[in-house]
């Protein structure tokens, strides 16, 4: 199929960017979206232009590196997939596809479609851990039974890949789904209880400091999340913060 692409081009963090139109031809419907981008870039390189910079790595939907806003949706129109798993069969011959970086004040654009998601890391530095030393004498793993239900729920929260689609999709650029998932994973496990109070306070404080917006419960994040992280995690984080303060 033949497509028109409208892509955000921005030289670096300081420069202003703009949308630029490109044409690609003979795109197979079996290609992944990023393979289509590879075709475009090969074409640009061969004609002496600079290729479009975009983040990507594992290309199997788990590393969380890829991050495009395609036709008005984070990771494009398909559900439960990252951009790297989006396939061109979701589009039709002659389509115009708009491709933008994830947009948020807390995710500054570094170049073209590449953004800096360091804010997520800093939130995790603030409390995304359990303080346990590596001794080799830690208590036996089975000395602490954890109900299957709690373990499964913690796992569901822990599947977050930190891609930032929640922030990108949220009309308020809120990071609460991400932070909620991280807080929830530890809140659901007995190991996480000891530091629960400080953890949620510090992580929320860092989240606020980074300039993310507030949650207004539109639910867009949950729909666009490639891993289907539930809004319940935000409610749980809210409860945890309340518990921590009163």
């Amino acid at each position, binding site marked *: 199929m033949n497509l028109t692409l409208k892509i955000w081009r921005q030289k670096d963090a300081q420069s202003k960017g703009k949308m630029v139109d490109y044409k690609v031809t003979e795109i197979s419907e079996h290609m992944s979206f990023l393979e289509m981008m590879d075709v475009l870039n090969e074409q640009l390189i061969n004609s002496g232009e600079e290729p479009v910079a975009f983040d990507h790595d594992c290309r199997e939907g788990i*590393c969380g590196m890829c991050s495009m806003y395609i036709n008005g949706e984070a990771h494009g129109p398909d559900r439960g997939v990252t951009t790297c798993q989006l396939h061109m069969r979701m589009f039709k011959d002659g389509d115009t596809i708009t491709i933008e970086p994830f947009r948020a004040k807390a995710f500054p654009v570094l170049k073209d479609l*590449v953004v800096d998601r360091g804010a997520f890391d800093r939130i995790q530095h603030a409390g995304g851990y359990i303080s346990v030393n590596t001794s080799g004498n830690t208590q036996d793993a089975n000395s602490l039974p954890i109900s299957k239900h709690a373990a499964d729920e913690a796992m569901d929260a822990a599947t977050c890949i930190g891609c930032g689609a929640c922030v990108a999709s949220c009309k308020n650029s809120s990071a609460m789904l991400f932070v909620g998932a991280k807080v929830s994973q530890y809140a659901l496990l007995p190991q996480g209880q000891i530091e629960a109070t400080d953890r949620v306070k510090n992580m929320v404080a860092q989240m606020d400091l980074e300039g993310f917006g507030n949650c207004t419960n539109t639910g867009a994040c949950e729909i666009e999340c490639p891993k289907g992280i539930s809004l319940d995690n935000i409610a749980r984080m809210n409860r945890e913060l309340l518990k921590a303060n009163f």
Partner: protein
Amino acid sequence: MSVLDSKVPKGPLKDKWTDYKNHIDLVNPANKRNIDVIVVGTGLAGGSAAATLAELGYNVKTFCYQDSPRRAHSIAAQGGINAAKNYQGDGDSTYRLFYDTVKGGDYRSREANVYRLAEVSANIIDQCVAQGVPFARDYGGLLDNRSFGGVLVSRTFYAKGQTGQQLLLGAYSAMNRQIARGKITPYNRHEMLDVVKVDGKARGIIARNLVTGEIERHSAHAVVIASGGYGNVYFLSTNAMGSNATAAWKIHKKGAFFANPCYTQIHPTCIPRSGDYQSKLTLMSESLRNDGRIWVPKNMEDVIAIREGKKKPTDLSEDERDYYLERRYPAFGNLVPRDVASRAAKERCDAGYGVNATGEAVYLDFASAIQRYGKEQAKIHNITNASADKIYELGAAIVKAKYGNLFQMYEKIVDQDPYKTPMMIYPAVHYTMGGVWVDYNLMTTVDGLYCIGEANFSDHGANRLGASALMQGLADGYFVLPYTIGDYLSNEIRTGKIPTDTPEFDAAEKEVTEKINFFVNNKGTHSVDYYHKKLGNIMWEKCGMSRNSTGLKEAMVEIKALREDFYKNVSVPGNANEFNSELEKAGRVADFLELGELFAKDALEREESCGGHFREESVEIDGEQEGEAKRNDKDFAFVSAWEYKGEPGEAVLHKEELEFNEIELKQRSYK
């Protein structure tokens, strides 16, 4: 006497590690504050090592090319992590895990290292649980296990199909704690481009800030390389797009020997290539072979009809199908080890029986599993005279419960419903057992330079067992390196801060800058990917699942010629001092173009078939095992460690003889 000293401690195998730990020199806490360590790569090995070293008190700098340590490719591991916990009471033990790993590696790994790995495996699970890793549990609240990779016990711990992700996030959380304390400084979106040696010791690295293009100098008292494997030398592999061998290759060029580069694992169950634009391959968990039956059509007419879309695989009757694994290996059938299953698929496809347009795919069929489970369920639920539809429905539900997420992933990628039509699979490069040579301390042949995880060669011999990569990465990082590096650093307490304004740093930086400037100024005619794909093609055709002397010799010549062409005609748009993905790729492919040649040379040298390395000249010529891989313990029970001499083709071979005192060497048989 070889120049290689493995430094394996004396004494009985089971006491070596304990005795070693009891006798090493320690660094006192006050002195640790004055010692810097650089860790390159933040996957399971690098992340866990960085966290543990920082916890001990060393000042750690971590480097990764991704935007966050959490994205290292360890994250993609699906199946699980082995540990000799014997929670299932099925007779597992440290010895059994050790034995299985050595045997699975086709007797080409170092006994003492593997035993230590098995010994610390149980600690890993304890550590990860304490960190909050949500492993799967049973209804009693205790940890669940699954069996994996054709061993006789259930010792694999897992977190859904995302074990690697959860373990990496665990290691990353341990890093977070140290970053918050200021003991780890993370350098994300940074790539190490060279190691700096001062008086023969590793004293720092040259790194490029991938956002600004700035070249940076970082000094340390020891450097740890944990940059993963080199599977991307094949262009198409299950590795991440950015996975590269640059750090490992650069240290090789600076004096670290490179061991067994030809040992590559080719995983049998990956989603096949769909066209020339393919950028990478996706793995489907090995567990699928527990229920799926692998086949291709018996008759060539059917193959052609299927490729042309005139027939569907479900149109073929049982006797028109060739279940070739069941035919060739009646004892193990579809559950033969990875290397055997992969070669058998290649054999059928080379003979022309591949079932998709590219001719490189075989079927993995769940129809009989669905029937079998359906009938079983009908019996359990007391449904007499169940209709075919009902049986299918019941059976499909069981298959869905076991493999639902994999089936969904397949459907998203291929757009076919694997409940209704057989999956198509083909082998793909997955893991590299070879890597930088290290001694028992995980130190390379350069003082103060360590190598851990997939980047080193040490524990998997010629073939890795399923669920052992995660185990090795974390064992090295959490429980081995922090001790062994301390022994070395105890001599560094009086060294003081290492300055970066020395001639050694000047020279290394100059070399790096010149290379970068060369690329951006070359203005050639072909993209980096053009060369990477060509290299991948040579590797796959001539150094792939089966290798022969002629092909390997050709490969060496072709790779060398390709490398020369690359340096003449590669085109890298953009500038050096900016975010430039093409420039990053150019440096990595340049290293692959050298590594590939050494790979072929190593494969040529090893005139035996073992594990993932299959030499067509070395097969059983008669008897029951006719046509199967033939290992040659008399002449090849050694580690090939290559010393760089200016050109990959001129590398010098050093042999580390492997001694087996605890295990009797046997031929693997799956007939």
